[in-house]
């Protein structure tokens, strides 16, 4: 599969860029218009977290997609997807720091130390940051072989993100279980590729 080159960069990538911006616009609009139910601040924090996780998993879909439908261009979407995942992670974190804790740093530090799901979420954010910072062409060139090694951290980050969600849930783990299953499929496909080659 191949999308004609000018369409791929000009139309397809632009469309994807706009599409991935929509959740952020939706939550911004929802807050503004008070359309997010009785507990809008929690809805925003959770919703942004959901999208961060979804887009992070989407970045992991690209290389299997290339293998399965022979679509090499998929790999060229990974940087945008990865940066969007980081964008939603940052908004999600900002939502927590602001709407949940109102920048009470003592309370936040307490949370990081005492609540395992916060600890693990924070770890995922810390690990994802160098990946976002080294996503430029210059950094890819400069890091050479190490770039790939650094960016394979994404597998660990995805696992941490799913656990973060799982441990946050009070009782009904249906949703985190679905994300876990998707991640398990994506990771085992890679293991299969590695050992069958």
């Amino acid at each position, binding site marked *: 599969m191949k999308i004609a080159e000018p369409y791929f960069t000009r139309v397809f990538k632009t469309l994807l860029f706009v599409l991935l911006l929509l959740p952020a616009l939706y939550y911004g609009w929802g807050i503004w218009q008070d359309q997010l*139910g*009785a*507990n809008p*601040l*929690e809805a925003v924090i959770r919703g942004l977290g959901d999208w961060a996780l979804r887009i992070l998993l989407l970045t992991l879909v690209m290389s299997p997609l290339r293998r399965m439908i022979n679509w090499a261009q998929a790999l060229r979407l990974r940087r945008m997807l990865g940066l969007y995942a980081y964008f939603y992670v940052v908004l999600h974190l900002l939502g927590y720091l602001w709407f*949940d804790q*109102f920048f009470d740093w003592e*309370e936040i530090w*307490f*949370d990081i130390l*005492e*609540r395992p*799901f916060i600890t693990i979420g924070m770890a995922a954010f810390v690990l994802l940051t160098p990946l976002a910072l080294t996503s430029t062409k210059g950094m890819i060139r400069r890091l050479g072989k190490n770039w790939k090694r650094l960016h394979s951290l994404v597998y660990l980050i995805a696992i941490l993100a799913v656990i973060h969600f799982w*441990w*946050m849930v*009070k*009782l*009904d783990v*249906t949703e985190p279980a679905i994300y876990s299953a998707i991640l398990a499929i994506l990771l085992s496909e890679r293991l299969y590729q590695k050992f069958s080659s």
Partner: protein
Amino acid sequence: MLILKSKDIKENEVTDFEIYQNRRKFMKTAAGVGISAVSGLPIIQANAKGVVSPYSTDEKLTDYEDITSYCNFYEFGTGKSDPARNAHTLVTSPWTVTVEGECEKPGQYNLEDLLKPVSIEERIYRFRCVEGWSMVIPWMGFPLADLIKRMQPTSKAKYVYFETLNDPEQMPGQKRAVLDWPYREGLRMDEAMNPLTLMGTGIYGKDLLNQNGAPLRLVVPWKYGFKNIKSIVKISFLETQPVNTWQKANKNEYGFFSNVNPEVSHPRWSQRKERRIGQFRKIKTQKFNGYGEQVASLYKGMDLKKYY
């Protein structure tokens, strides 16, 4: 300890819904221009035509819309908006409550018969969920103590135990075993007899909606929300402490007493603060949800970190 006893009030004396709505409008306007701060009068007393219970708070009421759309009622689904969407399948009339155990008057009671001798009154209580959010709810109801006295518990009755309806046809959430159905709760006898403890039958002067636990629910304002068992079909007087549903689901996180306590953190949430629905900033959580004056003596000498 408050010694004032609220007088019996007739149904038509209770603040009706339109007045509430007007009061809401007034409060919103007042908040905008600062009238309430200038007048210094509690707005609720100035507007209500019914008798104000001395147990009622004069804090700003949570919107009816929020109280009836943001609910935890896993019998109708685990999402906050599920109960409002799904609870229409519950049939609340006729409704029978079974009373059994250590009492002189066990039996099957029609709801009307249970309600006939009581006078419904209004109580505006704070409501604090274990998840860290809270509301101010104008309940309609009657003291649980009235009902208990009529059932004449024996000297063996140390606890009162409650059960929610168990019928997956009416309560579709029960088709999934997320909790061990039926939902169960319990109170120690002195907690149940405390004048704050209500059997709730309505909010905002109207009958309870199904998603809020129609037609009969428990209201214990100094405990976390999940103690306030909904749609009650069984009341039993027990000698030993029952195991409540959330304690059974996860006893490291939920206890029998479940008193609101900012000093005892839930493993996944600090309980020091709460989000009052409708407000932007969080507020500090009060011990016993601010009802310490009425209930702290019930727990004298108990280690509340151990008996959470």
